[in-house]
């Protein structure tokens, strides 16, 4: 199925969200180095295009799952920068009241059902949201984000098999940044394309340039439209680039840094800006305003986090069990 083409108004929204994610994560990196955020942090700088092109097409009742590199997905799905920042700072006003942190963001209100920290552990859980949707006769769709590193784990194949067997409305979105943590894909597997891994299961699947936002938008939109009307599952492999290391503090000795000029060619934000200008959607002088608004929002989020209290100690045991 063909989804609605990306237009100027949507492109402006996607740019705004990408800038919000980019500036937010750059600020998180600074705060981590300054010791103001002291947990384990994985940044998705460079991969924002996938998060926004997918999540902007979803509704709140479409469930999204993510992994350890989840800030962008949570924000793109609707989580407020203030609540995410407060969570990373371990505050009571955080999305998860400071109990989850960077790797375990959950925002039920916006259908961001959860990020899990063990690579691939989120993948089978997404099946359950898809099953629930099917059982209720709803047209809601489940989406799971994962990296190319998760594909070699058993969870992945079990999930693909069951999703295909039960024809569940689930879209697998692989962000293939070429590195599974610190190791290149070539050291993990002989299968270069993740989309080829699922070929025997008969899934509709595609590999796209994940930094080309309109390409991700079109490919995902088609799958989404089909999944809403009984199709599925689908797999979309998005080739992308992780600018930062695996985690903040990663010395990154296992790879060469991309040259600045080369990165400017690949950067999904700059590419969508160039594309929008070429399409005549809006003029260049609109762009600084979009980034500036994002920067203001990020600074407000930092203030919100700083002004928030740490959660009370009694919260820890109160959250172990749900009230009968």
């Amino acid at each position, binding site marked *: 199925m063909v989804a609605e083409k990306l237009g100027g108004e949507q492109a402006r929204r996607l740019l705004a969200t990408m800038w919000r994610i980019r500036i937010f994560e750059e600020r998180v990196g600074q705060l981590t180095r300054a010791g103001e955020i002291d947990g384990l942090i994985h940044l998705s700088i460079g991969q924002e295009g996938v998060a926004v092109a997918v999540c902007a097409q979803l509704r709140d009742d479409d*469930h999204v*799952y993510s992994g350890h590199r989840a800030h962008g997905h949570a924000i793109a799905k609707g989580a407020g920068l203030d609540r995410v920042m407060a969570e990373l700072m371990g505050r009571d006003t*955080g*999305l*998860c*009241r*400071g*109990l*989850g942190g960077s790797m*375990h963001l*959950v*925002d*039920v209100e916006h259908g961001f*059902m*959860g990020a*899990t920290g*063990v690579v691939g*552990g989120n*993948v*089978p*859980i*997404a*099946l*359950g*949201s*898809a*099953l*629930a*949707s099917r*059982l209720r006769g709803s047209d809601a769709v*489940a989406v799971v984000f994962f990296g190319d590193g998760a594909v070699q784990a*058993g*969870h992945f194949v*079990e*999930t693909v*098999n*069951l999703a295909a*067997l*039960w024809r569940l409305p689930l879209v697998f979105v692989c962000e293939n940044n070429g590195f599974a943590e610190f190791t290149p894909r070539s050291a993990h597997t002989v299968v270069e394309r993740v989309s080829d891994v699922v070929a025997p299961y008969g899934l509709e699947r595609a590999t796209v340039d994940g930094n080309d936002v309109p390409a991700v938008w079109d490919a995902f939109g088609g799958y989404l439209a089909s999944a809403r009307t009984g199709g599925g599952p689908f797999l979309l492999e998005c080739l992308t680039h992780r600018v930062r290391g695996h985690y903040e503090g990663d010395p990154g000795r296992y790879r060469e840094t991309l040259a600045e000029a080369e990165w400017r060619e690949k950067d999904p934000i700059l590419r969508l800006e160039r594309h929008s200008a070429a399409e005549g959607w809006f003029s260049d002088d609109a762009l600084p305003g979009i980034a500036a608004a994002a920067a203001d929002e990020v600074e407000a989020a930092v203030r919100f986090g700083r002004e928030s209290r740490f959660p009370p100690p009694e*919260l*820890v045991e*109160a*959250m*172990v*069990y*749900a*009230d*009968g």
Partner: protein
Amino acid sequence: MAHELPYIAAIVEAIQLEMERDESVLYFGQNMATTENEPFVDAFGKDRVRVTPISETAEIGIAIGAALAGFRPVVELYMAEFMLVAMDQVLNEAPRFRGMSGGQVRVPIVLKAGYGFTAGWAGQHTGTLNALFMGVPGLKVAVPSTAADAKGLMATAIRDDNPVVYLHNYLLTLDHGEVPDGEYLVPFGEAAVRREGSDVTIVGTGWTVDRALGAAERLAGEGIQAEVIDPRTIAPLDTHTILESVEKTGHLVLVDQATRHASVSTVIAGEVAEHGFGSLKAPVVQVTGLDATIPYSEPLEAHVLPDDDKVVAAVQRVLGTAPVTA
């Protein structure tokens, strides 16, 4: 009113009643619902009753996701060991979601598995891994020892808003017992005093409750009155009832089918050492499985496991009525 049922049928009755009561209860697992005339499929249809591939990680994962989305899945896992291939889902996903989300979600799933089938099933199908699960915050763990509890604990497990590991002992499968008719719920965290006594407290779980009762019967012939306690759920664990009994008897014997260093008995021993030391007139004695893989050969299997004789000997030792051996 009550009726007599085998332990395993009592579990099935509870699942059936809960599925009738609540449409959000789903039931799936391997090798089930493969034919149209299967009673559960017949009653509830193939949407709610599903056969799965041999994919424990996906089976438990899909249950977690469906629970996050408002359903109450019961996953039929058959053997506790089969959960070992899916431990990320069992120990690190299901029980952590609520806490990590700051209380935004609930994960009401039941992981139903048999354990302890020490009947020639050898090293990989006979384990008693119960204590492994009790140590994970967020999981509840039910270990029924009677047909009535098998029914009542399953019903409670399905209605609980948390992930529950429901462990039924395979050696009890065909043991008959009186089971209350209709809706019957056994609360979690409330131990049952199976026999009252004043001289020694014996705590067993699952199959070892019967070992404790068998030993108590024989000890009564020697004039020793043993109190037998069955915690029924090991998470939450009713240490209060155990401590109260120890206060009365001053002596404690713990019986567990598990290997000692991964046993419920060791956890209870620690609690009593800390909170009931003043009541103890003698050191606690544990009768557990040996720290070894369960052997296939029948006499060796018996050698590894607790039995009534070993429990009697332990009681005599703790009461000082038998010579203390190494």
